[in-house]
């Protein structure tokens, strides 16, 4: 099993390698290690934000600064950001890589994420937001694939990270 700290470091490296220079984030318990790794990566500027919509705004503006950007957040934070994503990124066709946690699925023992298990993927489908799920270390290269697709597609693309990837296996 690959250690969670190693996964976090590789996620940060994958972001930097694909052209991301700015990461705006708000935590979720599963990604605090990723945030630490991003903070330590000297190729990335890390900006902790007050709410997930601010990450969407900041990263979308960075596109016009010529800076590749990614918004990192939990599934619940993503669900609160639908307004910002559809208004800014859909209206103006601004690319954005959004990295989220895939909460509420098998192995997530938190009852308050049941709503994400029920509605996260249906909401992504409802707004025609392309997404891919990264569940294994050998799939981490798909983060770069998603970033490049967002640039081609001129809209946001979501990468959803699973618990087994981030925390190293399912809870009993």
């Amino acid at each position, binding site marked *: 099993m690959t250690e969670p700290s190693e996964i976090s470091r590789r996620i940060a490296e994958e972001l930097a390698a694909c052209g991301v220079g700015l990461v705006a984030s708000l935590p979720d318990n599963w990604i605090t290690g990723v945030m630490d790794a991003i903070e330590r990566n000297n190729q990335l500027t890390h900006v902790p934000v007050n709410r997930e*919509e*601010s990450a969407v705004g*900041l990263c979308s503006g960075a596109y016009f600064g010529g800076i590749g950007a990614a918004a990192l957040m939990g599934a619940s934070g993503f669900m609160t950001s639908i307004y910002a994503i559809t208004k800014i990124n859909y209206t103006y066709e601004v690319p954005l890589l959004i990295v989220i946690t895939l909460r509420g699925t098998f192995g997530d023992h938190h009852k308050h994420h049941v709503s994400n298990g029920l509605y996260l993927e249906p909401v992504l489908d409802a707004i025609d937001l392309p997404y891919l799920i990264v569940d294994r270390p050998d799939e981490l290269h798909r983060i770069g694939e998603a970033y490049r697709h967002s640039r081609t597609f001129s809209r946001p693309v979501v990468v959803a990270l699973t618990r087994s990837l981030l925390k190293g296996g399912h809870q009993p």
Partner: protein
Amino acid sequence: MRYRDCFAHLASRQTDQFVVTSAGNSGQIWWDVTRDHERVFYLDASMSLSTMFASGIAMGHPERQVWAFMGDGAFCMNPGMLMVERQMNLPNLVHFLVSNRRYGATSNAALPNQAANDYAAIARGMGLARVFEFASLEALESGLDAALDGADGHTFVVLEVEPLSDAEQKLPQPPMDGPELKYLFGRHVERSTGVKIFDHAL
């Protein structure tokens, strides 16, 4: 001070600054005053995110000042943005809070706690050091130079204006579609800074 007079003075002082307007009246009045369709991104499709958007632009163009307008209606939806702005402390970002004490874009509907909101105090409470307030055109004319000299860090400017009249509310919005705005503004940024936006290597 009248909203349009305030913006006309600011526009008269614009040189090479990039401008971002917000949902609400700011895009409408900036368009009425300037008819500019290159140096400004009319971020009408967004409540409370114009300064975050402008911060991203400012990060990439540290040599260029970025003016971001936001109504106090939008500000009330996300005042925590000032924490992020303070943390980033971008010296080339000027956040203009246009305070008309109304939801201006929705027929001047009432704003919560409108009489007591002290936006400058809120900003100072979040640690902002460069905070300016202008409630009259004369004060703006005499004090704007100091506000725009942002060498020491991020700047927050409160502009107390009158709500738009019924006739002013009917002024046209900028007529560009979203993708058109993206390319008009983005191509201007590319031409004027040399930074490539639309041809990233894939």
